[in-house]
């Protein structure tokens, strides 16, 4: 883990100048097998980097996670064998009452998949899901890295006991190690000032492709709170748990800074996900060691 410090000076007080230190917390990922990423793939052109400082376009809210009615701004990812697309996983979920669901997850460690809390803990029955099948880099009927079965689940206590959407994040611990060629995402907690106006990428497995083909869209963060990130990025049912990633300061490796969880309602003009805070980054790191 490496750390860096940003100094955010607030001088409202006539007597004191208070320096608020916001810490960057970063946990490295693993790029995976080099042989799989020698050639740049066409889907890499979908990825966006950097910041966008122009004013946000004001929009009418239609209460959909496809934010512009009549338009789907996402693109299908065709190279799910390549990095980082292969680190995004389709989830086939079976609840304790045998209801089936679909969601998305991302690889954070050799046996660790991170997703939304509501994909691992079912508030309807107040129980953990019975089983989740994880399919990295799924593309239609092709499952280039096979499928893996959940061993057990973890989540935040505030989600399982109170359903607090600020803590809607969960972990799937697999019964065996993932294919080592897959690698894993880096993740980290960044100060709000650093994340503000960043261009972010979200990729997942929505119902428009019956949860079998990966769809991606990228655009900017519109606002940030203590525990959530709001963005003008199209999503759809089935994309809960998708990674929200960016490239800090021209880095070549993607870093996950949040987990997609909610579509926009009419009260909001943006979709949203749980922000990785320093405490959450530490928690994911702890989950990495579980077997």
């Amino acid at each position: 883990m490496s750390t860096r410090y940003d100094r955010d000076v607030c001088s409202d007080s006539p007597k004191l100048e208070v320096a608020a230190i916001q810490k960057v917390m970063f946990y490295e990922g693993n790029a995976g097998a080099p042989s799989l990423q020698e050639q740049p793939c066409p889907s890499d052109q979908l990825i966006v980097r950097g910041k966008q400082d122009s004013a946000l376009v004001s929009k009418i809210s239609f209460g959909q996670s496809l934010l512009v009615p009549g338009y789907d701004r996402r693109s299908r990812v065709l190279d799910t064998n390549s990095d980082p697309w292969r680190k995004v996983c389709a989830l086939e979920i079976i609840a304790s009452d045998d209801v089936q669901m679909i969601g998305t997850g991302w690889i954070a460690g050799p046996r660790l998949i991170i997703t939304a809390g509501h994909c691992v803990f079912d508030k309807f029955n107040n129980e953990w899901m019975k089983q989740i099948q994880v399919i990295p880099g799924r593309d239609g009927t092709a499952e280039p890295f096979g499928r893996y079965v959940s061993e057990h689940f973890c989540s935040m206590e505030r989600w399982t006991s109170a359903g607090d959407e600020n803590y809607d994040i969960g972990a799937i611990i697999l019964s065996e190690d993932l294919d080592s060629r897959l690698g894993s995402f880096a993740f980290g907690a960044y100060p709000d000032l650093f994340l503000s106006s960043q261009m972010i990428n979200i990729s997942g497995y929505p119902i428009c492709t019956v949860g079998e083909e990966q769809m991606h869209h990228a655009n900017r963060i519109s606002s940030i709170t203590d525990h959530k990130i709001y963005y003008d990025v199209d999503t759809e049912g089935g994309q809960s748990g998708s990674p929200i990633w960016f490239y800090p300061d021209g880095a070549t490796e993607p870093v996950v800074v949040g987990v997609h969880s909610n579509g926009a309602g009419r009260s909001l003009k943006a979709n949203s996900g749980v922000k990785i805070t320093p405490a959450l980054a530490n928690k994911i790191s702890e989950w990495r060691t579980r077997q």
Partner: protein
Amino acid sequence: MKAKMISGCVVDDMGNPVKGAFVVVQSSDLPAKDIAIITNDMGVFRLELPGGDCCISASTRSGMKGVKKISKYTSSNITPKICVYY
């Protein structure tokens, strides 16, 4: 406005239950979870609705689609029926 859990079913235009349809909250007053539920052998699903008015939709692999509007005044005891067609 509190979230509520509902159960419902998906049927085709002949009234037959549709197995394996994907059901989601398509639009709503408050943010909804981006998870999709799959109907069982009887075409039955259960879904958490956010507070306020919302619209739920069902779609199948074969391309049938249908939507159902649910009012904020509707109780959680209702069992909405979504009719899907080509």
